[in-house]
């Protein structure tokens, strides 16, 4: 599978005008790659994920296209996207565990889903049981109502349902945020096993928690205020970041082994800009310690090292000088 996103630009229609939530996103995900999509609230990561699979009002596609295995996805057309969903591209949405229909037993819900996709429910049962074992859920879960399950169990049920039809690309939107530490690890590792067993071919894992991505992702894409900041292999992002925002972000994360008394970490002063009327050029400009006049123009997202993309004029300068 291969995903190519080109110049994807999505705005939100609101009463007060257009919120420019996603601006010129261009990147690719290779076959078998687990890409992490990280950034703080309002950076556009959920917008990006949702526009790949469910671009509905108030979201509006301004320009750009998405190619899945070389085929252009009709993302702006909800009807024509139907055959792609679940089978080619699937999503585990945020708050998914609260989205299970409380009046339906799990088994019944799965049966209905399979029926709607013309898959033989009875024939599928052995495979279903195998998958239940994989996510460490007992087969009795099929006979239970959502309210009888714990948060972590519901999360795993949703993961199971989203991958039932072996989609090429799976989007996981903040699936670990509401979980305990122990469940987080289990769920994150399950995502990797989905890829290893080829239930899905590639994953985009959206989260604000970079340390989880360090554990499971092959590459990380950092976003800020609707713009792409940096994309690189995980090691590079965490230990050799090149975008000023990434650098400041990584250095502000408390880690086991770091004490306040020994080393006082610092955050990034200021707040992200309002996207209703965002500043011109690089949107990190106002908080960036390295900003200069060129930053009034939007920096392009280009490759500075193999597999390492950055959108920062300063970096291009230092790169040119090197």
């Amino acid at each position: 599978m291969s995903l190519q996103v080109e110049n994807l630009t999505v705005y939100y229609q609101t009463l007060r005008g257009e919120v420019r939530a996603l601006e010129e996103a261009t990147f690719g995900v290779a076959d078998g790659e687990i890409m992490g999509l990280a950034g703080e609230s309002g950076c556009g990561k959920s917008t990006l994920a949702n526009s790949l699979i469910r671009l509905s009002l108030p979201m509006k596609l301004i320009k750009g296209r998405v190619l899945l295995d070389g085929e252009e996805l009709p993302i702006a057309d909800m009807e024509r996207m139907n055959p792609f969903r679940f089978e080619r591209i699937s999503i585990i949405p945020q708050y998914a565990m609260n989205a299970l229909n409380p009046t339906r037993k799990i088994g019944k819900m799965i049966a209905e889903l399979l029926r709607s996709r013309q898959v033989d429910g009875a024939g599928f049962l052995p495979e279903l049981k195998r998958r239940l074992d994989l996510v460490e859920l007992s087969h009795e879960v099929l006979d239970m109502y959502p309210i009888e399950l714990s948060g972590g169990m519901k999360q795993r049920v949703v993961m199971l349902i989203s991958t039932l039809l072996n989609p090429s690309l799976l989007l996981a939107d903040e699936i670990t945020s509401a979980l305990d530490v122990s469940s987080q690890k289990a769920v994150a590792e399950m995502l990797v096993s989905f890829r290893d067993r080829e239930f899905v071919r590639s994953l985009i894992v959206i989260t604000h928690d970079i340390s989880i991505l360090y554990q499971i992702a092959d590459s990380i894409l950092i976003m800020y205020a609707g713009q792409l900041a940096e994309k690189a292999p995980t090691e590079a992002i965490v230990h050799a970041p090149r975008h000023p925002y990434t650098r400041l972000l990584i250095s502000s994360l408390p880690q086991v082994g770091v004490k306040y008394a020994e080393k006082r970490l610092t955050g990034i002063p200021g707040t992200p800009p309002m996207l209703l009327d965002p500043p011109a050029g690089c949107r990190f400009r106002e908080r960036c310690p390295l900003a200069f006049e060129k930053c009034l123009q939007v920096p392009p997202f280009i490759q500075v090292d193999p597999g390492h993309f950055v959108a920062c004029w300063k970096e291009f300068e230092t790169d040119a000088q090197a």
Partner: protein
Amino acid sequence: MLKLEAVSKIYRIGTFGGKELHAVSNVSFEVEDGEVVSLIGESGSGKSTIGKLILRLLSASSGMITFDGVDISTLQGPVLKEYRRRVQGVFQDPFSSYNPIFKADRIFRIIKQEFFPEMKRGEWQERLEGALRAVGLNPDQVLDKFPHQLSGGQLQRFLIARALLLNIQFLVADEIISMLDASTRIDVLNLLADLKSRGLSVLFITHDLSLGYYISERAVILYRGCVAEMGATEKIYARPLHPYTQMLMASVPRLDEKWKVVETRLKAQESELRGGCVYYDRCPVADRALGCDTFRPPLVEAEQNHFVACFRCGGA
């Protein structure tokens, strides 16, 4: 300064209140003057309940909480108000701590009305601006606004400033930064640590071990209402003794090393507590011969300033 002795909180649940839910079970620990203690636990551990018990928002079913030697459950009227002057709390969700139809400054006005009714306007204004600056806020930018016009970080700082206005000695910080963005989290955390140097004691309630390590000298690890391990933060993190703590340490995602392959049994649906150790169902090294399924292990001192409640680590 603050001492919990065998504190328990039991709720009656089920139809006709037949069943019992032990939110907090026989918890004892202390917080000294000018000390930051982390109360670490996942959901259902009882950590928030302990916070509310200390703040007198709930009353304990058994056991005793003392502040400077005085049992807080006996406080009434003006003495209770004195207690509130010295002990305050800040909660997890900055937005729901504010009454949405009023401006954010109202929380300060309430403090003035309740605690400083006679203070003159000018003097109060000075005091207020001083507190705001102490938490790193510019009074001109943040006053006279509605909560939804301020960011989560600003709202949390407001709440800390409110506590400072009272010149408190003890702050209960219940997951105060978990809903903030990563880049602002560290600033609020640093603020707490700075305040410690002014003599403030903090009970830092969190589920995030790296935060606990960053800011506290001592930590208390809770599981399902019981203390699993307790002691100096460095010792617990360097050499976790309780199987639950070990599991937590192994599960924390770190930026300097990858997860090891560790067998972790996940939480099934909450089973009713029987007599034995609360971690029995998930413990990889549980041993019936030691009595893990019948007796509650007591807290024993494994090394100096490092206590653990596990039969395998001593204590029969």
